[in-house]
């Protein structure tokens, strides 16, 4: 069993519990490889997927995990433009409480929104990304994928490359990886690396080639084009030259780096197609492990009964 009722973030999350989740995820991964991919573990449990922001991948991954565990699921999606931000949040929360939901999976554009939700509902709350704060289930699936390749996390050199400032994936990965004993470097232009990040125990680099030499695995984060307009980077060409992961660069180092990406990818910008589709990329394993990890998280937090 896990120590905390909710999964809001990996800051201060017990390392042992991360390991438990990953171990459980591997056993669910076996289920996913069977012809009949469904277990009755969460039969009778009701889970609502509350998406205040579009994220098709994360929602589908959660939904699939819930279905594989035989839970009943309800989806609530609202683009923030149609919601009067904030004001209706309390109402939504109270409605969930009234409907006797067992767990809420929430994606919200505002940092702290899942914590806010725990104050209004009794249900288990799972953070599926809150602004640029945390995205703990993504970090767990990333770590599971690393463990699958390397057999361990401890001592690995992992680089997060790209837009660290606006990424919820970055913080959760940093907390999780450092808790499990990996070494982390963040790499990108200074404008996309938040001040004070080194206080989290990571190294900062602006030199992708140096990072290639050092790293065992790269986790490449998505670049959002709207960042260009406000001067955070000057052009796609310049970004690609400095921080794009392409075959030419990989070949120069002649090293079998493991390549990860949480998706959705900008092919040809932060990552070239040839790299994304190469055998050293484990991007599709991440997707499958995402379902397994989320099954493990739901199972452990909702106290499901053991598989028959």
């Amino acid at each position: 069993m896990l120590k905390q009722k909710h999964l809001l973030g990996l800051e201060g999350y017990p390392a042992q519990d991360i390991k438990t989740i990953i171990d459980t995820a591997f056993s669910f991964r076996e289920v996913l490889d069977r012809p009949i991919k469904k277990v009755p573990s969460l039969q009778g449990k009701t889970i609502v997927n509350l998406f205040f922001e579009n994220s098709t991948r994360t929602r589908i991954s959660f939904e699939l995990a819930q279905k594989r565990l035989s839970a009943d699921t309800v989806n609530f999606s609202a683009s923030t433009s149609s919601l009067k931000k904030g004001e209706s949040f309390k109402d939504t929360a109270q409605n969930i409480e009234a409907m006797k939901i067992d767990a809420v999976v929430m994606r919200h554009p505002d940092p702290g929104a899942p914590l806010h939700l725990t104050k209004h509902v009794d249900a288990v709350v799972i953070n599926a990304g809150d602004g640029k704060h945390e995205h703990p289930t993504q970090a767990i699936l990333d770590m599971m994928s690393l463990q699958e390749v390397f057999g361990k996390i401890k001592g690995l050199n992992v680089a997060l490359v790209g837009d660290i400032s606006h990424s919820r994936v970055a913080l959760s990965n940093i907390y999780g990886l450092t808790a499990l004993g990996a070494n982390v470097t963040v790499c990108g232009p200074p404008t996309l690396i938040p001040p004070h990040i080194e206080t989290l125990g990571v190294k900062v680099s602006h030199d992708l080639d140096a990072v290639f030499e050092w790293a065992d695995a790269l986790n490449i984060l998505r670049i959002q084009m709207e960042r260009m307009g406000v001067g955070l980077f000057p052009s796609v060409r310049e970004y690609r030259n400095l921080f794009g992961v392409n075959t030419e660069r990989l070949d120069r180092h002649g090293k079998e780096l493991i390549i990860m990406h949480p998706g959705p990818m900008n092919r040809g910008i932060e990552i070239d197609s040839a790299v994304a589709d190469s055998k050293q990329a484990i991007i599709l394993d991440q997707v499958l492990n995402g379902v397994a990890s989320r099954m493990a998280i739901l199972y452990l937090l909702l106290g499901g009964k053991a598989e028959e």
Partner: protein
Amino acid sequence: MKTRKMPKVLLLKNGTVLDPLKGTSSKKDIIIENGKIKSIGKPKAPKSAEVLDCTGKVITHGFCDVHVHFREPGREDKETLATGSRAALAGGFTRVCVMPNTNPPLDSPESIRFITEKAADCPIHIHPIGAVTKGQKGMELTEMAAMVREGAVAFSDDGLPIANAAVMRRALEYASMLKKPIINHAEDLDLRDDGIMNEGEMSLKLGLDGNTFLAESMMVFRDIELARLSGAAVHIPHVSTKESVTHVAAAKKNGASVTAEVTPHHLYFNDEALVSYNTHFKVAPPLRSEADRKTLVKGITSGTIDCIATDHAPHTIEEKEATFTNAPFGMIGLESCFAAVNTILKKEKNVSLLDFIALLTVNPRKLMGFDTDLFQEGTEAELTILSPDETWVFDEDSIYSRSLNSPFTGESFIGKVNATLVRGNMTVL
């Protein structure tokens, strides 16, 4: 809290009279007749006098706050001049200056008169601060002279900075003709960007957009230099960073006409208070680092900071129930002000009441051109009675504002306001 008319003759007996103007403190009795100071010392009171026993208590000037938002006109659901007055009385304030960022803003002689006329019926003294620019748009100067005639005591576009340096320069020059200070909410909006809390380790961990200290201190420096250039007086509101304190201290040394205020919440809290995303801690300028907070406390004892001002900013529960990102900036502060400041200064610096009481009394009055000699015979009794060592817990029952957005709810305080005397009334808490 009870407010009633003062008796014809009131004897404040056995209290310690603390005169922040003369810097003296001694046991004296005070006779107040018809709401005015009659005599101080060991006067003989007539038999008919009502006695208020002040044993163990301190009697000092009524507090004066140069920075409150009473939301009238426009957001009377948050606060009015009348409800704000009650919050002031609960905090020992007898006099406040209301900021003009109302709806519509106080940017014309007519709107200033609206406030002064309404204020005449309020139990405390309320003075309007006029907007510097029409519509607080930062472009065209308001009719400052006519507004002064109607009762404006200073000018500010508070809530919004005057971004254009040329406009700020002209405002300073023009207001200097009227001998009124300009109060500029110093924050470079471009540099602040989307920042909603102090930029630092905490903003990184919380995933909230940071507002760098430099967004404030850069503009504080600009305003000081512009004041120097124009020979005008500038007042820096709610100083929150150590760099701003440095700029103010240096400017004072060089003889610039600059004054500065600090809020109780910036003295009391740092940005770690935001760890639970409690929207009561969302304020502009933001709560800063512990190093900044310590420097502000030092600024009080060193004399760099002139005034303590609450920036009392009421908001509805509904607005503050939103997520941190969407909640409005601001917190109420009148009721908790003295206790919060006294607690911090006592705990951290062992500063005596006499050393900081001027920041709540004489200094803000001087800044606004109000009478500062309140213990003179014949002066209106505008007094606050305190128990500086009483310990108590601030809770929702301690709040008299129409809004409840206080970050101090639940805090244990040292020092309590017991009574506030002003405008012929006495309020006993």
